[in-house]
């Protein structure tokens, strides 16, 4: 108990110190280990103003009409954020007093018949949108986008590709080099994560998860739980590419272990089973992030994160080290030893942290929005980056961004 109190005090002091320090920095990422319930409970209303550009509906509404599946897949955050901002009290109709500018363009809504988004047209769509706003409003050219933010929830964020090698080759779209990116992808020292980005959780349908809640007195009897692919035979027939071999390693080492309830079958009681498990594995797939983290937090199952160098959502507001268990990919064969040797007090503490409602709220995108949900955490993150450094405001005629950089295919009009 005492340890907990002193830890809280320490974190609070640390936060306060870093807050004071921040005002001298530009757009550096802060890695503040805020204790859950501290920064998470800030209310962004009154701390910032956001102006929403009015783009023609071909950038947002028409795309959504073409494929309404975009509302339920894990990239739906971009659509719901737009809707939230339109009716939020932080929205301002006067762009002169706005701190941040938002461009509602749904780049992740071009879906295959299977439901996976194709990123091939996204760079062109983004470029066309930016051309529009830079020609119709003066605010883009004022800062070359440094006070604009974009939501890019795709696999590798603004690199706009689902294959990691190609994404790294492309890098972040040149026009977005100065803007703040709000994305689900996060990996340290990676080309597709630039400093100052805000990592958000992938979208998970809150209503669906709500209907599958079971009474919390149901005893947790599964030790480790995982449902998903271990080998992606369609895209990786040789093996060893998918998940950097980590998922395959989990299967090969623990398929005979009765403590590990792992399989590729997708049961109808998937959510209920997570609520009966103590640990839920969240290994990387083709990208390091997955909706499993959100589900584990909502259902009170301690997430076991197997993804080297991953940056988790709202990492500056949520102390993930205290809540989840991090296992290096090379340590996967020793996973059972690692999990059974965690002291029981720590496990109980993690469960208490997970039971904190503000923790669960921060991972969700509920409609209509509720206080302290993910929308507000994003706004909190944007508010923490204010005020903008005066150097971002460029003298008129000064240009930093190269509008003709990038692959030739991107320069075609959309």
């Amino acid at each position, binding site marked *: 108990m005492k340890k907990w109190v002193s830890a809280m005090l320490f974190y609070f002091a640390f936060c306060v110190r870093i807050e004071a320090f921040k005002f001298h920095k530009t757009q550096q990422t802060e890695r503040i280990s805020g204790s859950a319930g501290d920064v998470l409970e800030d209310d962004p209303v009154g701390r910032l103003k956001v102006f929403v550009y009015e783009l023609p509906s071909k950038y947002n509404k028409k795309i959504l009409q073409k494929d309404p599946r975009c509302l339920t897949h894990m990239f739906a955050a971009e659509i719901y954020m737009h809707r939230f901002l339109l009716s939020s009290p932080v929205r301002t109709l006067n762009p002169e007093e706005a701190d941040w500018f938002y461009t509602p363009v749904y780049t992740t809504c071009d879906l295959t018949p299977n439901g996976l988004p194709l990123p091939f047209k996204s760079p062109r769509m983004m470029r066309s949108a930016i051309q529009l706003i830079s020609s119709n409003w003066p605010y883009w050219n004022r800062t070359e986008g440094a006070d604009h933010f974009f939501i890019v929830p795709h696999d590798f964020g603004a690199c706009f590709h689902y294959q990691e090698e190609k994404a790294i080759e492309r890098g972040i779209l040149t026009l977005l080099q100065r803007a703040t990116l709000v994305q689900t992808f996060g990996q340290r020292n990676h080309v597709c994560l630039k400093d100052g980005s805000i990592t958000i959780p992938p979208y998970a349908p809150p209503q669906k998860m709500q209907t599958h809640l079971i009474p919390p007195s149901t005893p947790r009897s599964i030790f480790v739980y995982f449902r998903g692919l271990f080998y992606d035979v369609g895209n990786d027939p040789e093996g*060893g590419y998918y998940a950097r071999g980590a998922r395959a390693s989990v299967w090969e080492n623990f398929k005979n272990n009765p403590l590990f309830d792992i399989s590729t079958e997708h049961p109808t009681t998937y959510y209920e089973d997570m609520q009966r498990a103590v640990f839920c594995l969240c290994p990387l797939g083709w990208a390091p992030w997955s909706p499993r983290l959100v589900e584990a937090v909502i259902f009170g199952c301690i997430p076991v994160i197997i993804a080297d160098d991953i940056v988790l959502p709202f990492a500056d507001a949520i102390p993930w080290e205290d809540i989840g268990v991090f296992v290096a990919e090379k340590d996967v064969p020793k996973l059972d030893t690692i999990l059974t040797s965690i002291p*029981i007090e720590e496990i109980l503490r993690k469960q208490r942290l997970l039971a904190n409602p503000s923790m669960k709220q921060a991972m969700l995108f509920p409609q209509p929005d509720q206080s302290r949900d993910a929308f507000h955490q994003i706004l909190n993150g944007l508010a923490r980056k204010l005020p903008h450094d005066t150097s971002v405001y460029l003298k008129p005629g000064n240009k930093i961004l190269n509008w003709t950089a990038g692959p030739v295919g991107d320069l075609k009009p959309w």
Partner: protein
Amino acid sequence: MKLLSALQQQGRRSNNFRSASSQLDSAVDGGVKSQATIFWLLLHGLCCLVSLVLGFRFSRLVFLLIFSTSSPSTTSTANLYSAFHTSFPSTTTTPSTEAVNGIIAEGSRVVVGRHGILIRPWPHPDPEEVLKAHRIIERVQREQRIQYGVKSPRTVIAITPTYVRTFQTLHLTGVMHSLMNVPYDLIWIVVEAGGATNETATLVSKSGLKIFHIGFNANMPILWEDRHKLEVKMRLQALRVVKENRLDGIVMFVDDSNMHSMELFDEIQNVKWVGAVSVGILAHSGGSEEDLSVAQTEKNEKNPQMPVQGPSCNSSNHVVGWHTFDVLPHVERRARYVGDRGIVLPRKLEWSGFILNSRLFWKEAKDKPQWVKDLDEVGRDGDDVESPLSLLKDASLVEPLGSCGVKVMLWWLRVEARADSKFPARWIIDPPLDVIVPAKRTPWPDAPPELPSSIKKAINIQDNTEKRTPKSRTTRSRGSRSKRKRSAKVSIEQVTTRYSSNK
């Protein structure tokens, strides 16, 4: 590129081979050359087959291992990995052969491309770790119960009337195991008809629970009606123990042949003074086929569900009436004495469906309600106390449990062997059997043997008042013992002759 160089080397090797062997046998020159190519072809074919099996290009692995200067890290880590199958270490050697161009960002430890699948040499669970995991799970569940379960659990006081008979071990073991699994403090009051015996004492002491073992000075009668009455008296005696010792907790009546679910014990913690639960009645028929089929057809006509005894509520969750078991259709076929073939019928309201706060029986308790009679008044005159409702002046203040009687967490069942059936004391065969006699020699014929005369008399008296169709009973004699002996002998002789004729 490497392949070509290898081929060249191979060619060179074959030349050396040739030059070496030319001294030996010049005639085999051409053969050796073709042998080399055949060998190469075979090797290539083998590599292809192995690649098919492994799933990646085996030939490259061979060249890598033979020709590249493998760093010491590979050999050291090779101990961890199974030798050839699927694994070879990820970061150090792969970039040269497998990793795709230009991936690694500065400072990143994570490499894009192909990685080995790490498998430890013995991918099976370690029993120590399994034990640790179970302890973790147990602790987590205990914490859950503290957080979300009953806030201040009260002691459960279980009252069980019992007596020594064949099925006592069966029934009492079931009850004992249920009570041992109850997560709350428990006091078990075992009242035994015929006095406290060692048999029962050894059985219940295995539970490790806190037990009051009380003897009751009356033998358990044979007829079911009398048995029910005696059980009531035994329960009242147990309640007197609760009163004298001022035991604090929740009193429940755990009959030894009933079946309890663990949720029952959680539900009864909600009782304030008097609660009622629904009891499922498993009216067991004697086992004859006719009984069952007739019973079932009757049941199908009326209601095919299991009959339930319990409270019935109105919309505001107050008890307004009681569901009871309808005995009329089964009266004809009911069992009259213990061990009889026939359906054992419950009484109107079984005691096991009622849960009482033990403070009701204390002499002076703080908030003892006015609508409870004193324990000494009830049952004093020897008249039958039908159900705990007789203890209350006002029956409408009973609290319904289990979502107003909807949940059945308790089942009433009476299964007994014949009253004269023999069983080894404490179910220990001592001395051990040393002679095994074939069945046809033992005195257990197909037909049931003669019953002791006391039972017969009881039945006959009852028979005179009621008409009853005789079942498959072979002999029936009235009166004197001598006649019985003779007829018994006759029956045995008949049986033995029957057997001998079957031979």
